[in-house]
């Protein structure tokens, strides 16, 4: 790869060396700017893959998804020992349960902060979320002794918004940059732990690259998280080209800048008006419309739904989404994974057959 992405561990060490605090943040949506205004650096935890799940299994039933299982296992094995706090957005029933047992029953050494995200896009949802963020801000003030004013908050917000705009630009210029799927998604996913200013530099550098790749079979990837990341190698090897995605950790977080000059409201607007996401209650129609437009704009021929087993928010929508895509001539397949396992051979075969079919 022509861009060097600093590893997560180094980034965390640098932050600590500078005297900053690190918050481990679980999926999906949260106000990066609010944390940064308190000199707290968010580092996201999407599992991670390949950990000893028996540690989480001592507290969670097998029918809880592998993202939550792995996050708890990772915490128990000391993987989050260097972080100063945990922020867990209320994304689904499983993350709600994890937050609750961490607050009440297991109690890690770091403080745990929940964040409730409303399930609608109505005026009252924005008002409520702004108040939630204001409450969180008070908690962070008590924790850090810092009291950023509105100007400080707006500076942090604008820094994140600038970084989000660059992220969007990366998607728009993917083909011109000539990055493989693997390279591109390693870059995009570095937003999960790089401070905005560092990510922006990296993104600007990437946008300078001009090296066209031969066009592949254009597809959209939809789901929560593309783990194991081998899935990109598989798609690369089979000449698939992910022209857009509807992934919770990537494309569903292409936040538009908020419009309000009141910082809490502006952060709330950014989250609530993000691309459609079932965990935030967007309707199936909105998701269909969004996927169809994405496919039309980017010339996608098919959609790979890449679902984590037991993930209800994804699983409920699949039949209706797939039916609607089919009606509009878009093929799709559903691959179910456990992020702790290597990509099953069966999944590789199915992706291969799907791409061949689209190519035919």
């Amino acid at each position, binding site marked *: 790869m022509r861009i060097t992405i600093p590893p997560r561990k180094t980034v965390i060490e640098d932050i600590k060396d500078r005297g900053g605090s690190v918050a481990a943040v679980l999926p999906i949506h949260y106000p990066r700017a609010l944390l940064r205004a308190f000199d707290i650096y968010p580092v996201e935890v999407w599992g991670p893959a390949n950990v000893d799940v028996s540690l989480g299994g*001592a*507290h*969670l*039933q097998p*029918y*809880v998804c592998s993202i939550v299982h792995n996050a708890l296992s990772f915490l128990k094995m000391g993987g989050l020992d260097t972080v100063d706090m945990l922020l867990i957005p*209320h994304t*689904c*029933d*499983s993350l*709600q*349960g*994890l*937050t*609750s*047992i961490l*607050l*009440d*029953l*297991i109690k890690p050494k770091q403080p745990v902060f*929940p964040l*409730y995200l*409303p*399930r*609608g896009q*109505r005026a*009252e*949802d924005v*008002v*409520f979320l702004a*108040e*939630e963020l204001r*409450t969180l801000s008070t908690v962070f003030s008590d924790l850090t002794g810092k009291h950023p004013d509105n100007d400080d908050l707006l500076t942090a917000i604008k820094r994140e918004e600038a970084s989000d705009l660059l992220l969007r630009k990366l998607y728009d210029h993917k083909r011109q940059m000539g990055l493989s799927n693997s390279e591109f998604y390693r870059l995009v996913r570095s937003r999960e732990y790089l401070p905005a200013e560092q990510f922006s530099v990296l993104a600007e550098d990437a946008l300078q690259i001009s090296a066209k790749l031969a066009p592949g079979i254009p597809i959209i990837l939809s789901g929560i998280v593309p783990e194991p990341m081998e899935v990109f190698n598989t798609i690369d090897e089979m000449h698939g080209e992910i022209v857009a995605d509807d992934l919770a950790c990537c494309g569903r977080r292409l936040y538009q800048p908020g419009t309000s000059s009141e910082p809490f409201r502006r952060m709330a607007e950014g989250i609530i008006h993000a691309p459609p996401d*079932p*965990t935030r*209650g967007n*309707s*199936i*129609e909105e998701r269909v419309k969004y996927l169809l437009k994405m496919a039309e704009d980017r010339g996608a021929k098919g959609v790979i739904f890449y679902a984590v*087993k*037991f993930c*209800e*928010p994804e*699983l*409920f*929508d*699949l*039949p*209706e989404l*797939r*039916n609607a895509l089919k009606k509009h001539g878009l093929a799709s397949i559903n691959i*179910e994974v456990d992020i702790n396992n290597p990509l099953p051979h069966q999944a590789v075969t199915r992706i291969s057959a799907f791409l061949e079919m689209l190519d035919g």
Partner: protein
Amino acid sequence: MGINDSLKYYWNVKVVGQPFLQWQRWQAERHPKIPSRWRTDILSPPLRIGARTKELISRHYLEGRYANGHRPVAWVTSGGPVEILQALGFYVLYPENHGAVCGVRRVVVDISTEAENAGYSTDICSYARTDIGSVLSGKTPVGRLPKPDLLLACTNICQTVLHWYRVLAKHFNVPLILIDTPFVYTEASDHALEYVKKQLENSIPVAEQVAGHTLDYRRLQEIIQLSKNAAELWLEIIGRGRHHPAPMSVFDQFIHMAPIVEMRGKQETVDFYAALLKELDENISKGIGAVRNERKRLLWDNLPIWYRLRYLAENLGEHGICVVASTYTNAWGELAPLMNKEKPLESMAKTYTYPILNQGTKYKLDTMKRMVEKFQLDGVILHSDRSCKPYSIGQIDQRNLLIQEYGIPALLLEADHDDPRAYAEEQVASRLASFVEMLES
């Protein structure tokens, strides 16, 4: 609303159906029959109120069968704030209750297979699969379900209902009212309660438009009072479990809780629970217990295993064990004090934010401990319900804490509330046998 549909409703429900169901109940009350293979050596005969429960539930589904075109119909989640809809004259259907009926009648596999064949994963809630399967195929053990004119999903029991009702909204193409109740990790904030109240306020014009008339606030107050009265009676009924022997087991409660879930805000529900309370008091005065030779008493945590109620009652009853109380049935009564007709929306916001399923794992653990003390129980069975993550996550630690910190024997039982394919009888039997042995040692 059409005249033909109304005529059909009156003829089938009022003229034919209701009198027939009433006659059926009288017959059953005059000549009570013990169900075949009922283990009378272990369990007391079923409560007499059973005939009335059957009449109420049958009438409810009968009314639903002919409701379309005569009354507006709403499908609502079990923890939904139903009082506004009742006051507007909606016929209210609870798909979860229908799911429970399907579970008791053991038709879940057949119906949910219809949903699975349409692409719905077996990993989603079995109530939802059963409901979607029923919608897609028309299969139901209750005759016919009315189509909804309005959907109302309240997230105070789980996020699953949000995803499920979005599917229904797409299928039926009708408005979906969402009442989002922020999860209470410790205490609900003022802005959370204000948020719920605002959503309740905003739901009124949507429901009014579907109903075709405006809400009468005095009627709403009456209905809130009726809901409160029924919930208070239900709490008293559950409280009778403090007597030794307990006059009613949770397996009876699971059956007789149907009206408090799907018929809140009705005078007949209040009358029904007053009659049930009277019967229990009679049984207490005669020393009649649900289990004939009650020696040990247990708490049940989580939803029932609908398709194995009798098996569990008999299996435990054989050892003189009565499951006396449940955090689940308790949930339908414990919020009664919060309801206040003088502050309808404000009190509804609070009531519907605080169900046990919308509160943290510590609250549930404390509730279990409190109930063990109140009902003088010997142990707890925690049903780890594959289809209900909000209720089940935390149970592993709760079980360990009950045993280690409070010295309360506790058993974790893996199953699913509706889908028998996630239930292994041999395994359940052997775990129950070991638990019973431990309780007796």
